[in-house]
C-alpha cells in the first residue's frame, strides 16, 4: 500500500463522507422531529442536482411546475380539513403559502430561463424549488397521518420515494446530467490535487453543521423543533404547532438534500434514481449516530465515505456489500450499549 494511494483514497472518502454527513444530519433532523424515516431524502438530492443542471442549461425544470401542483393539492387539503371552521384569515394565509408562493416561484423560473443567469441565482432558485417541494410533501403526505406508528410513516415515506422517483424520470429523463462547477480553481499540496469543488464541499458541510447547531441552540424555532422531538404532546401543550415543526424539518431536509445534490452534480453524473443509493449511505451514517446525535453522525459519515473509497479500490466488486455489512456490528453495539427501554409508550 503506498502513501499516495492512501492519501488519495482518504481525500476521496472525505469528500463523499461530507455529503453523506449532510444527508445523515437531515435524516436525523426529520426523524427526531416527525418520526418519519425519510426514504425520499435521496430524491431531494436528485431534484436539487438536476434542477440546478437544467436551469444551467437554460431550460425550465419540471420541478418548478411540480411545486405549483403540490401547492394546489396542499391548498385543497387545507380547505378540506378546515371545511367546518373556514375563516377569511386562515384561508388567506393558506392561499399565500400554498398558491401564491409556488406561483411566484414558477413565474420567477420562467422569467429567468433562457437568460444568462449567474450560478448563484440558479442555486438559489433550485433551493427554493426543492425546499418548497419538501414543505408541501410533509403537508400532503405526512401531516394527515402524523399521529400513526413509525411503521406506517415509514411505508408512506416509501410511497413518496416511489412517486417522486417516477416523477423525476418524467422531468429529467433517463439520461444522466452534470452541472457546472461552483469554481474552477484548483491547487496542489504534495501529491494531492484539491479542486475548488471539493473545497466547496468541505466548506458548505462545515457551515451547515455550524448553522444547524446555531439554529437549535439559539433560536426559538430551533428550540421548538427540539421540544417537538422530545415530546410531541408536551410541545403542543406549551403552544408549539407540531405540524409547523414538521414542515420546518422537511423544509430543512429538502434544502440540505438539494445542497448536497448541487455540490456533487459537477463531480459525478447524476441520474434520476442515483439519489436513493446516496441517501441510503447517509442512512448508514445516521444509524451509526443512533438517529439522535449530530456530531456522531457527521463523524460516522466520514468513516462510511472512507471505507467506501478504500473498498472500491481494493475490492470494488464488494464495495456495497462491505459498506452495508459494516453497520451490523455497529447496530449491535449500539443496541447493547443502550439497553432497550420498555417499548410501552409507542
Amino acid at each position: 500500500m503506498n502513501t499516495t494511494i492512501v492519501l488519495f483514497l482518504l481525500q476521496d472518502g472525505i469528500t463523499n463522507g461530507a455529503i453523506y454527513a449532510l444527508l445523515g444530519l437531515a435524516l436525523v433532523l426529520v426523524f427526531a422531529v416527525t418520526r418519519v424515516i425519510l426514504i425520499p431524502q435521496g430524491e431531494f438530492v436528485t431534484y436539487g442536482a438536476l434542477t440546478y443542471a437544467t436551469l444551467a442549461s437554460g431550460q425550465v425544470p419540471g420541478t418548478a411546475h411540480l411545486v405549483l401542483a403540490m401547492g394546489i393539492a396542499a391548498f385543497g387539503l387545507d380547505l378540506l380539513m378546515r371545511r367546518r371552521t373556514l375563516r377569511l384569515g386562515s384561508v388567506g394565509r393558506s392561499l399565500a403559502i400554498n398558491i401564491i408562493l409556488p406561483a411566484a416561484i414558477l413565474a420567477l423560473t420562467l422569467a429567468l430561463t433562457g437568460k444568462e443567469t449567474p450560478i448563484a441565482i440558479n442555486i438559489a432558485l433550485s433551493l427554493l424549488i426543492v425546499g418548497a417541494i419538501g414543505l408541501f410533501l410533509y403537508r400532503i403526505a405526512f401531516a394527515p397521518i402524523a399521529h400513526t406508528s413509525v411503521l406506517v410513516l415509514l411505508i408512506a415515506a416509501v410511497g413518496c420515494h416511489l412517486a417522486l422517483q417516477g416523477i423525476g424520470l418524467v422531468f429529467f429523463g433517463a439520461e444522466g446530467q452534470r452541472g457546472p462547477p461552483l469554481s474552477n480553481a484548483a491547487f496542489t499540496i504534495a501529491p494531492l490535487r484539491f479542486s475548488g469543488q471539493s473545497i466547496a464541499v468541505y466548506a458548505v458541510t462545515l457551515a451547515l453543521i455550524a448553522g444547524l447547531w446555531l439554529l437549535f441552540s439559539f433560536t426559538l424555532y430551533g428550540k421548538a423543533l427540539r421540544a417537538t422531538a422530545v415530546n410531541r404532546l408536551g410541545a403542543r401543550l406549551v403552544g408549539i404547532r407540531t405540524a409547523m415543526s414538521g414542515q420546518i424539518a422537511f423544509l430543512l431536509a429538502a434544502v440540505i438534500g438539494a445542497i448536497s445534490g448541487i455540490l456533487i452534480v459537477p463531480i459525478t453524473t447524476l441520474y434520476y434514481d442515483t439519489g436513493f443509493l446516496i441517501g441510503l449511505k447517509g442512512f448508514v451514517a445516521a444509524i451509526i449516530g443512533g438517529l439522535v446525535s449530530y456530531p456522531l453522525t457527521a463523524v460516522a459519515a466520514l468513516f462510511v465515505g472512507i471505507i467506501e473509497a478504500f473498498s472500491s479500490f481494493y475490492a470494488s466488486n464488494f464495495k456495497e456489500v462491505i459498506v452495508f455489512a459494516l453497520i451490523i456490528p455497529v447496530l449491535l453495539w449500539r443496541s447493547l450499549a443502550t439497553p432497550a427501554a420498555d417499548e410501552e409508550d409507542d
Partner: protein
Amino acid sequence: MRQRLPVILFALVMAAVPFIPGMPPFWIVLLDNIGLSALVAMGLVLLTGVGGLTSFGQAAFCGFGAYTTAVLTTAYGVSPWLTLPLSLLVSGLFAVVLGIVTVRLSGHYLPLGTIAWGLGLFYLFSKLEFLGRNDGISQIPPLAIGSLKMIAPDTIYFAIWAAVILCASLTMNLLDSRTGRAIRALRRGHVAAEAFGIKPPQAKLLVFIYAAVLAGLSGWLYAHFQRAVNPTPFGAEAGIEYLFVAVIGGAGYVWGGVLGAAIAVILKEVLQDYLPYLLHSESQLETIVFGMLLVLLLQLAPGGVWPWLMRRLPLRPDRKRADPSLVLPPRERPAAASGTLLRIEHARKQFGGVVAVNDVSFGVDAREIVALIGPNGAGKSTTFNLITGVLSASAGTISLLGRTLRGASPQDITQLGVSRTFQHVKLIADMTVLENVAIGAHLRGNAGALASMLRLDRGDEARLLAEAARQIERVGLAGQAHMLAGSLSLGQQRIVEIARALCADPVLLLLDEPAAGLRHMEKQRLAALLRELRDGGMSVLLVEHDMGFVMNLADRVVVLDFGTKIAEGTPAAIKANPDVIRAYLGAVA
C-alpha cells in the same frame, strides 16, 4: 370446525378458478404472483404486525430459497423436490445467523439493520460467481409429479396456492396458541412478557426464522415458476414492497397478507396496462401513481384494508368456550402454614448517584398481606422490580423460601411462584381478556411452536384456557371474558392483571397499586378477594396509596421514605407512628 369453514371454502374457490371456462391465462399468472407475494407477506404479518419486528430484508430470504434450488438443480442435477427442504433449511439457517444479531437490535435500529443486510445480501447475490452474478441462473427444471411437468402457469398455480393455504392455516394455528400469545405479547414490551416466563429473545428468533422460511418457500416456488433467477427480485426495493404488501393488507392479520398481495399485484398490473393508454406516455407512470395511491391508502386506512373490510362484514369472531372440567396441576406449596416466605435483607439499589432503595429489610410470611407504603418516589416500585428480577440489587440479598434470588431472571422468579401486576397496566389491548389472562399460565403449559402449528396442542391449550376462565370468574369479570382488553375501564384492566397473575398459581402475589382507579364497591370486592386468597394459603405484598384500603386489609405495613424504611408494624401502630405522619404530612410545626 366452524372457524375452519371460511378457509375450506376459500381453498375450494381457489381450486376451481383455473377450471372456469374462458379464464384468461394471464389472470392465472397474476394469481401465481399474488400467491408468491402472499407467502412472504404472511411471514411479515407474524414478524412485523404481530411480533413488532419490522424487516425490510425478507426479499433476501426469498433469494436464499431461490438460489439454493437454482444452484442445486442446475449445477448438480438434484430433483426439485429434494431441494425444497434444503431451500427451507438454508433460509432458516441464515435466519438463525442474521436473527441472533437482528432481534437484539432495539427500536428503530431493527428496521434499519434489516435494510442494511438486505442491501448487502443483494449486492452479494449479484457479485458471486457461482450464483451467476447479475445474469443469475437460468434453465432451472420445472416441478414435476411423475410425467406431469408444472411448466404452465395454471399447473404450478396449484403448488403455489396449496402452499399459501397450508401456510395460512399453520400460521393461524400458531397464533391461536400458547406460543402465539407469547409472540403477541412481544409488542407490549419485554417486562410484562418476562414477568410470565416468556423469553422475548427466543420468541423473536422463532418468528424471525418462521418468516424467513416462508420467504424461502416463496423463493423456491418462484425459481421453479420463472425457471430462472437473477438478483433483481431479491433487492431492497422488493424487500420494501413486501413490507408494504403486509401493511396495506393489515399487518396484524394473516389473511391481510394475502389481501395485500392481491391489491398490490393487481394494482400494479392495472396501472401498467391502462395508464399508458390514458396518458399517452411511455414513462414509468405506474410507479408514480402506485406511490401516490399507497400514501392515500394509508391516510384512509392506516390499519390496513383487511380490518377495515372485516368491520364492514357481519362476521363475529368465534368465542372460545372454556371447558370448566379441565384443571392444571397446582403448584406444590410449602406444607408449613407459617414461616417466612420472602425475606429482603439490606437491599440497596443505586442508579448513578441516586439511591432509590437504601438498605431496606423486611419479610413476608406465609398467609400474610403486607402493604408497602410511602410517598411518591419512596422506592416502592423499585423494590418490586428488585424482588421480581427486573432490576438487580446493588447490594443485599433477597430470598424466597430460603433460596437466594441473586442473579435470577424474571422468568426464574415467576417459576418459583412470584407473580405480579404493574403500576401502569400492561395488557395487550387487541387481545381478549381471556387470552390476556391465559398468558399468566404460560409456564404451566408446554406445547411448543410445532405442536401448535399442527394443532397437537389442543389438550394443553384447553387446560390453559380453562384455568384462565376460572381466574377471570374468580375476580368477577366473567361477563367481560370475551371483550378486548383495551375496551375495559382502567379499573377493570387492573383486575384483569390480577387474574393474569393468579393464573401463574403464585405463592406470593405482588400488586402494584391495585386499587387505583377502582370505585368504592370494586375496592371492597378486591379486598374481599385478597383476604380469600390469603386464607387459601397465598401471601400478598402490595403497594397502595389508598390508606383506607390498606389499613383495613393489611396484616402488616412497611413504610418507605426516600428509599429508606422508616417504620414497620400493624396498621394501628403505623397510623400512630410520628415518623410516618411526618413523612406524609411534613414536619409538625
